[in-house]
């Protein structure tokens, strides 16, 4: 097209904006390092135990012990086992404000901070941020039951009875129920005084929280962020929600094999619980203090499927855009990626849609890139899933080992990916992708890069 027929009216040029300074900053974009990791998962209550179990291809699924699930269509889940509050060094008074998922968060965050070997001081607390993916279940079942017995004995709530209800008058029950309870505990516990935010996009929450954290450091409003996700929906109401949607596997007699992402016989996910936390630091600051860097948090992409509330379209539209956006953000191409930690829930629809998306984005590289869903072993940690799985990617890069896609037996032509089967693959891992797709259609993709590739390039 000739420049003469330009369809646009001439742009009105405004005076040079002082914001050009920001643009300069974007050119020399700040890099972000992962310098601390903490995990509480169905496979182990810290990083070492979780990794050992992944390495040994153990699964965390078993019959539910947290409550009597004998009447439910699904009676299995991947519970966090033998969790001891004692590992939390926060003052006991603070722990009273924490429900089960918040306790996982406090423990995992403590491990991540200890691992990073750095914490906010009075001088730099305002340069620390906190970005978390929070579960949706605020009210504990015990509190709900107490209100029901007192205020709704026949099933219908009588608001007058709330006035004399113990649980409805208990400020601690109120505090634990709040969506900001987790971020409040963490910022208080570690005295974080920069940006603090809490996000919820269902199963994409953890990934989106980490993506938000990345952007906070890039734009220079903080230098370090404690970020992650936490959730526990293994309660009568939480499990009920998924049973009603037939989203969870009902293989009650074979819990070990119930989660089998990409397998032709897959029939739903296994509900998990837990928390994953990372300490992120501006790259140069991390290098200056000689911190161990697990990997670069290199890129984040997110998109909305706008298709149906529970599904991605079979052709992968939605996840395709989030993966492409994340790769572009990381200034990488599919050829640079060695491992994809798939969302891989083990539901019919997700795994098919995700396969289509990976093939669309990776083209011929889809035959090469290794793929596994660690949900095959630890179940689906919902709002914590994305954060835990990004942590696993960081460990895979750091340890040069790719975890398996467990429980796979039967080939599904709709899921023809290069799955890591049988035993973990020991190899150099240059870059990883972690996918998380949520109910509601939010898709998150987080890209990590091996630290030596960053230093080599400089």
């Amino acid at each position, binding site marked *: 097209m000739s420049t003469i027929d330009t369809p646009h009216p001439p742009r009105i040029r405004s005076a040079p904006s002082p914001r050009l300074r920001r643009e300069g900053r974007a050119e020399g974009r700040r890099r972000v390092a992962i310098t601390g990791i903490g995990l509480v998962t169905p496979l182990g209550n810290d990083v070492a135990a979780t990794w050992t179990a992944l390495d040994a291809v153990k699964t965390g699924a078993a019959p539910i012990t947290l409550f009597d699930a004998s009447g439910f269509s699904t009676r299995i889940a991947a519970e966090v086992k033998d969790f001891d509050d004692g590992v939390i060094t926060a003052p006991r008074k603070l722990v009273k404000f924490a429900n089960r998922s918040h306790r996982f968060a406090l423990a995992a965050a403590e491990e991540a901070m200890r691992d990073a070997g750095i914490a906010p001081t009075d001088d730099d607390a305002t340069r620390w941020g906190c970005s978390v993916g929070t579960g949706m279940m605020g009210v504990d079942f015990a509190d709900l039951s107490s209100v029901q017995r007192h205020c709704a004995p026949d099933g219908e709530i009588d608001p007058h009875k709330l006035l004399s209800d113990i649980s409805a008058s208990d400020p601690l029950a109120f505090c634990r129920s709040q969506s900001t309870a987790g*971020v409040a505990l963490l910022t208080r516990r570690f005295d974080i005084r920069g940006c603090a935010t809490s996000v919820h996009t269902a199963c994409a929450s953890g990934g989106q929280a980490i993506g938000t954290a990345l952007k906070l450091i890039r734009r220079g409003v903080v230098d370090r962020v404690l970020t992650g996700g936490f959730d526990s929906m293994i309660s009568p109401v939480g499990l*009920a929600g998924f049973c009603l949607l037939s989203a969870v596997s009902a293989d009650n007699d074979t819990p070990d094999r119930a989660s089998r992402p990409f397998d032709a016989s897959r029939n739903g996910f296994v509900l998990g619980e837990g928390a994953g936390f990372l300490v992120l630091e501006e790259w140069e600051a991390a290098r200056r203090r000689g911190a161990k860097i697990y990997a670069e948090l290199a890129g984040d992409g997110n998109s909305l499927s706008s298709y149906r509330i529970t599904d991605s379209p079979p052709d992968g539209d939605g996840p395709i855009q989030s993966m492409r956006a994340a790769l572009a953000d990381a200034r990488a191409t599919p050829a640079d990626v060695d491992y994809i930690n798939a969302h891989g829930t083990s539901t019919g629809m997700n795994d098919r849609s995700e396969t289509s998306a990976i093939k669309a984005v990776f083209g011929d590289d889809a035959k090469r890139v290794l793929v596994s869903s660690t949900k095959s072993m630890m179940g689906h940690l919902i709002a914590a899933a994305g954060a835990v799985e990004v942590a696993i990617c960081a460990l895979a890069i750091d340890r040069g080992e790719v975890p398996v896609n467990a429980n796979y037996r039967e080939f599904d032509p709709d899921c023809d990916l290069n799955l890591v089967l049988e035993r973990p693959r020991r190899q150099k891992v240059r870059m990883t992708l972690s996918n998380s797709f949520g109910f*509601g259609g939010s898709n998150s993709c987080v890209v990590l890069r091996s630290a030596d590739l960053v230093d080599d390039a400089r």
Partner: protein
Amino acid sequence: MSKVVITGSGAVCGAGRDPAQMLAAIVEGRSAIAPIESFDTTGWPVKNAAEIRDFNARSLVDDRKLHKLIRRTDMLGIYAGDRAAEAAGYGTHRDSLAEDAAHAFSDRTGIYVGSGGGAFENQYDFFPLMAQAHGDLAKFGGELPDTVNPMWLLRTLPNNVLCHVGIRNRLKGANACITNHSVGGTLAVIEATEALRNGEADRALAIGHDTPIEPQNVLYYHRCGLLSADTLRPFDARRDGSVFGEGAGALALETEDAARARGAPIVGEVLGGGYVSEGAGLLAIREDGDGVVRAIEAALADAQIDASGVGMIVAHGNGTSLSDASEAQALLRVFGNDCPPVTAFKWALGHLIAAAGIVETTIALAALRANTVPGIATFAKADAACAKLPVSQRARTPRSDVALVLCRGFAATDAALLVRALRA
């Protein structure tokens, strides 16, 4: 980097169904705070709130099938989001494009939502089952499929507005659902603005929605000493707490380049924003207003303007003793003796929690366009702690076309947003 402009807005609360109606109510000194009608408050310590009266779901969102999948709070958020998208001409523009360009338009349009509401009532759907089961969980599990709506989990998703406004308006770009209590809506604007600055999207809706007026929630806030016995009096010596409202607000944001290229109406600009934590815990806040100071400073730095460029301030002004006193201190620390006119809107709208900051921003833009800083009708006598703050019952004139809108929430988070209005 392109400026981020505002191409449309939408809002609903007890004081009206668009920002202009809300501004008119405020200017006329009319408050939407009145006796609660949604439940019987006989014997209750709290009797007032700013409810949306003659609530007619169909008139807000014209899709009856959708009503079964969402809650009241979602209805409000979808209404506000749809209005902003409509005002910004998303649908008409996309319909004028060829298929590929229309897909690209969708992929490049994001949505950021600050979400709240229904926290306790969501779970009451299980009460009939729990009553039937009498504490027997095996029975609970067995009778579940016959008793509870199979869509229960989907109805209660905190990211429902994100999902449904996305589907209704075919938005497929960068997105987030922020569940950060009162600062949620403001954070949605700040994060959407950053996404546009970084080129993650060309345009994005920012929405905040909440419906805190549910009995159990009212009672908890009361027990925590946060609610007034009658009405909300920001910065006044007689203030005794906040009063709930309910509602939603939305802004359609776009890079200036993209907006001009498609000839979208430009009604304002987001100059910048900032948010911080006070690290004080869930309910506690610092007495010195340090977090508010830092949030304002961060917003000014982000916008690259001086404090002297601010023409009016819409304070959080939630009417609680400590929040207002510490906020007044913070404003005086930042603006000194040269503080621009300060007002607050919650006395008329109630506290809309996650929707508060964004609804108040839509009204601030309307006020700037009308060249007025509306007075606070319930303000009579300044509290000693707020004495030097330029608040008034009377209307004043903004010093410039820039408003600073403040917002504070649980987890001791403070947020500040700077917007410019373009006068017609």
